[in-house]
């Protein structure tokens, strides 16, 4: 399956929220939707889930307009919360029913998920008696119990301890392996880098960058060198205005042209005491900051 948002425009009153947003997510792979707060991620997700219509543009599944009656979507919202005063099993059944499940099937599936997440002891408890992390696991059941083809997880790892984060990682990997379309939205770039094959960075309602993460990294201009050396000041003085210091203490040297690479590397190793020099490959964090950061 291929899920595609094509040229989505949306404004609330005078305020334009999305301008021509397009991206594609494939089944069996995870897709990362990135953007700063207020960039338009949640609006994109809501249009994708048909909470409200776009002003123009299409949501397509395998090239045809998506039929929400046939395609199941599971959603873990960033703002978590269910009914605090109601019994967990009751509300899980309710949400599964709203997604179109029959009660016996719902109960069966919910019990499987509660077992998988180690939550069976809380089955008949009220939600507000649970810790925040456990409430989040319950919320994950509402997103997955009806076995949806499309799974949308908004900041799934926030608020989880390392053990639960590991459990969630496994669950997500299983869902991807089952051939589902998994859509991630997160600020924690390390998780996106770990899971996602392709990404879209939304900035101020516009897709600033989209595509295969590996390709993006490959295509990133290879015009910077990362240098580890004890003589950073000397090097910086030798290349005035072209260097900066990365967070890990490496010196980043921007080349005027990628073709200079070999010449500069040779010069560096000849003139300075160099521990390591290599072509700088940006992390997703760097890419994100570059595309979504500066334009404030």
């Amino acid at each position, binding site marked *: 399956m291929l899920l595609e948002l094509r040229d989505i425009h949306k404004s609330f009153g005078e305020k334009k929220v999305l301008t021509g947003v397009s991206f594609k997510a494939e089944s069996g792979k995870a897709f990362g939707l990135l953007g700063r707060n207020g960039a338009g991620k949640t609006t994109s997700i809501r249009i994708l889930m048909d909470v409200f219509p776009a002003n123009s543009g299409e949501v397509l599944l395998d090239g045809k307009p998506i039929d929400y009656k046939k395609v199941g979507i599971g959603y873990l919202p960033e703002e978590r919360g*269910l009914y605090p005063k109601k019994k967990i099993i009751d509300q899980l059944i309710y949400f599964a*029913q*709203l997604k179109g499940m029959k009660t016996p099937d719902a109960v069966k599936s919910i019990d499987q998920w509660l077992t998988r997440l180690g939550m069976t002891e809380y089955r008949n408890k009220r939600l507000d008696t649970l810790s925040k992390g456990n409430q989040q696991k319950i919320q994950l059941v509402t997103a997955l119990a009806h076995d949806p083809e499309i799974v949308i997880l908004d900041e799934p790892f926030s608020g989880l301890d390392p053990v639960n984060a590991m459990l969630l990682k496994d669950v997500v990997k299983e869902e991807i392996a089952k051939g589902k379309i998994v859509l991630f939205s997160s600020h924690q770039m390390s998780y996106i880098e770990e899971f996602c094959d392709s990404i879209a960075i939304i900035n101020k309602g516009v897709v600033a960058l989209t595509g295969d993460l590996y390709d993006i990294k490959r295509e990133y201009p290879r015009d910077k060198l990362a240098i580890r050396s004890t003589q950073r000041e000397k090097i910086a003085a030798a290349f005035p205005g072209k260097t900066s210091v990365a967070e890990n203490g490496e010196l980043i040297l921007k080349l005027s042209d990628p073709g200079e690479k070999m010449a500069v590397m040779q010069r560096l190793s000849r003139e300075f005491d160099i521990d390591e020099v290599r072509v700088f490959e940006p992390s997703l964090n760097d890419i994100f900051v570059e595309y979504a950061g500066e334009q404030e």
Partner: protein
Amino acid sequence: MGQFSKIFKFELKGYLTNKVFVGVTAFIMVVLAVVLFFPRVADFFGGDDEPDDPGTVEPGERDVMLVKGGDESVRAALQEAFPDYEVRLEDGDIQTPVTQGEAECAVELRSLSDFTYYVDNLSMYDTNADTVSGVLTELYRLTAMTEAGVSPERAQEIMSTFTQYEVQSLGVDQGQNFFYTYIMIFALYMVILLYGQMVATNVATEKSSRAMEVLVTSARPNAMMFGKVMASCLAGFTQLVCIFGSALLFYKLNESYWAGVGIMGMFFDMPVALLVYMLVFFILGFLIYAFLYGAIGSTASKLEDINTSVMPVTMIFIAGFMVVVMAMTSGSVDNPLMVACSYIPFTSPMAMFTRIAMSHPAAYEIAISIAILAASCVGVGVVAAKIYRVGVLLYGASPKLKDILKAVKNA
């Protein structure tokens, strides 16, 4: 339809398993049972208890009424009119004993036709001055007639003659209908306010607990809104049926014990047609307000905001209630204001129902009123659903009415 029925069931179950809801209903039913079974129980246990005779109170225990400026005949006449008081003649200061609590009240006569009544704190229900006035007037007339040569017996006879009459109502007996109309209007008022607030709180709770985030992606807003409102309507209706049904049942079981108490019969001898009207106005009135409350609830992001947000609607409703109750107590239920109110959808459930119960509006008037109400109900429902759609996704400060309308237009 599928989602609607699931939401409806879930919400209804929420009400019916709510401990407060069940507790309050059960409590009222128990109170009704206690009250309505009371004469039977009292009869069973205390059948041979002698009732207290008010005349056996010792003189020393009675309140004192002081009289200044009158003679023994005045004192005797007043003593006869006030058996609960010890009436004493007093020549000195009569105000101080009253303020110091030694006497309950005092009467200072300047003549038989002119007096001042003194009492420490004047109660709303103090009619002593009127009684004194009556006694003195009679005394004055008797004296005057005797002085004019009429024999005392003849004078007494003239004074005690009253014109005999009887009343036959050819329309509705407002006196009799007043009680159950009042009870029904009050029930309507309570149920609409209580459940309206509950719907608003319910929606706002879903929003503030963020359950809404998942709900909006799982169900259509229309199904959510209508499911909730209908469930609360049925819950409210169930509660009313439980309360009124149990009252009726308990009354019927004990009817013979209540035979002497006319007011009980007035409550329960309700015409069936009126019950049907009650049902119609209850359902339509409930729905129109519940839609409004639901829409308002959807625009609040915090529960604390609810009280201020619902104020305008509650005000309209209370104003309608006041108009109706005032018209009822004044007896002129067909006054122009009531006629106008009986066509305005937000007041017609109470106003028209009152007019039907206590007067006889033409059939076409009733039909028009119900038609307007039903049409408005649909209209308000549609608009409320739109506001709800937009409102449930708005967070932050409560949006202004202008913003909501704008958003609704764009939705």
